[in-house]
């Protein structure tokens, strides 16, 4: 430890510019690795979450991009007719969110409401930290059981009631907290798997047929956009497409399991490949620059290193000192990336951005920690390349010649 302190303070820090140079290059390498790792992990999480749509007999609805929405044609009777058809002929998973309401809470966040039916709830297997599962067989004029995110559980523990002045039913509602979702429970967008909204400040609202019948057109119409049809066939889908066209004047696409896989392979795998290749090339370039920087350091500090070797410092000890020094720089960089990420995440709390507010150790969520682990692995690889290259350069010069430099 004494010799390590001596080498760092008397040799490395005496030429601090070289150390800062390596540190900045490493910081860039870490940032690139961290960003790429998070993109891939987030996409993977999204894929895992929405894997259920890749099953035979499952079709996911999507408004045809060429279909123009004419709101003068879309009316409550039309949407109701579509839901009547759905209720009598299909098993479907209904989910829609993004309805913001003001519910008093300790963090003063705007609350997002997510509406889902029993089929969707079963497919997603929501994990609870407290309370019991949702009950979909409730009376509309009584207390409606709901799930809430962790952020709301401080103000509304299990069993508490939430009074909502306005609702999609057009009248005040009383909600009863049935359970609390695990922290950082999320929902991924079907068409952008790496994009998520977190449920920490959300209320998950169970909907049944009666609820949809009485709800406003907004929720009915939005729910149709991402509706998932289960255990069905191409023929039944074709007739549903006709019903939607006749009642709402809209063309819908329904993607099957094969189309979902094709979409994933074409869209996501291709994008992930580009991210992987870009990251790899950038890391190689940065590693080359770091090796150049390290060679420069050896060139300028050769005399100091060889004098120490002359007076009894062994090569293996020098190797350990180099790895220790590199580990120190790497640790500082990983800490900087962590602080930067934690600050970004904390920004969502400051902006009162309920959809992205997350909980975690030092402000970082699981995905961030996993990405930091990958950063540490990449640092180790870059570290081995740089240190071994430095040692090779030092060993190439005879001690007597190095001392005379």
């Amino acid at each position: 430890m004494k010799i390590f302190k001596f080498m760092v303070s008397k040799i490395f820090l005496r030429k601090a510019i070289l150390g800062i140079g390596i540190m900045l290059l490493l910081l860039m390498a870490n940032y690139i690795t961290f960003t790429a790792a998070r993109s891939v992990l987030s996409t993977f999480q999204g894929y895992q979450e929405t894997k259920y749509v890749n099953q035979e007999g499952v079709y996911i609805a999507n408004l045809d991009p060429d279909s123009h929405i004419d709101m003068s044609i879309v009316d409550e009777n039309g949407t109701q007719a579509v839901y009547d058809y759905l209720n009598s002929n299909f098993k479907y998973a209904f989910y829609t969110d993004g309805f913001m309401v003001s519910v008093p809470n300790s963090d003063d966040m705007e609350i997002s409401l997510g509406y889902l039916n029993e089929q969707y709830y079963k497919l997603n297997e929501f994990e609870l930290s407290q309370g019991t599962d949702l009950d979909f067989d409730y009376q509309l004029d009584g207390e409606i059981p709901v799930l809430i995110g962790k952020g709301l559980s401080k103000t509304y523990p299990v069993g508490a009631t939430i009074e909502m002045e306005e609702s999609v039913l057009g009248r005040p509602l009383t909600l009863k907290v049935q359970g609390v979702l695990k922290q950082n429970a999320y929902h991924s967008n079907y068409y952008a798997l790496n994009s998520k909204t977190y449920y920490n400040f959300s209320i998950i609202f169970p909907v049944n047929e009666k609820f949809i019948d009485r709800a406003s057109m907004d929720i009915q119409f939005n729910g149709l956009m991402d509706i998932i049809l289960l255990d069905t066939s191409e023929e039944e889908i074709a007739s549903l497409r006709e019903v939607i066209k006749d009642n709402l004047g809209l063309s819908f696409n329904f993607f099957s399991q094969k189309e979902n896989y094709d979409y994933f392979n074409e869209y996501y795998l291709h994008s992930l490949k580009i991210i992987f290749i870009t990251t790899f090339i950038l890391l190689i370039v940065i590693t080359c620059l770091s090796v150049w920087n390290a060679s420069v350091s050896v060139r300028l500090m050769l005399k100091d290193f060889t004098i120490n070797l002359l007076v009894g410092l062994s090569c293996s000890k020098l190797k350990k000192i180099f790895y220790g020094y590199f580990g120190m720089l790497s640790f500082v960089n990983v800490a900087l990336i962590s602080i930067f990420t934690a600050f970004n995440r904390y920004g969502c709390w400051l902006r009162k951005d309920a959809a992205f507010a997350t909980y975690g150790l030092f402000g970082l969520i699981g995905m961030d920690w996993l990405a930091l682990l990958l950063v540490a692995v990449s640092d180790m690889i870059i570290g081995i390349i740089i240190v071994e290259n430095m040692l090779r350069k030092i060993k190439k010069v005879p001690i007597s010649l190095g001392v005379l430099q």
Partner: protein
Amino acid sequence: MKKSLFRLTDMLELSIVYIFCFSLNLLMEYAKTLDLDAYILKAFLKNFIDYQPLIVSLFTFIVIVFHYQMLERKKAEIFCRILVGGTAFGITIRYVLDCLTVLISVYLLSALVNFRFGFNLADNFYLILIFVTYILISAGRVRKYENI
């Protein structure tokens, strides 16, 4: 070139670090113009584009490293030149001119690429200001080696 502190390898090294910085800036400018359908790629690139000036500026530190190591290596040569009749002023001027020659050549090359891709020629200009500052600061160090 005969009286210059620069050898061919030094010129090459300096050109490479300048080219790297200009290319990085150019790549970011190019990334901004991409019309990507894939949200995942857009989100990935946004992490870099949002911090473009900071990232490019941090990378310019390798130019500081070059100037620093170049002058550290040449301190004996500077001292010897002064010993045989050279002046610190003359050495400094030649050093600055050599650095500027390399910088201007690389900038013209990058301007050509900018022009080819239809980017604004001023996009790279802030790097010139940064690099000229580095050259002037490092030129001030030449005088330091008058007496070693």
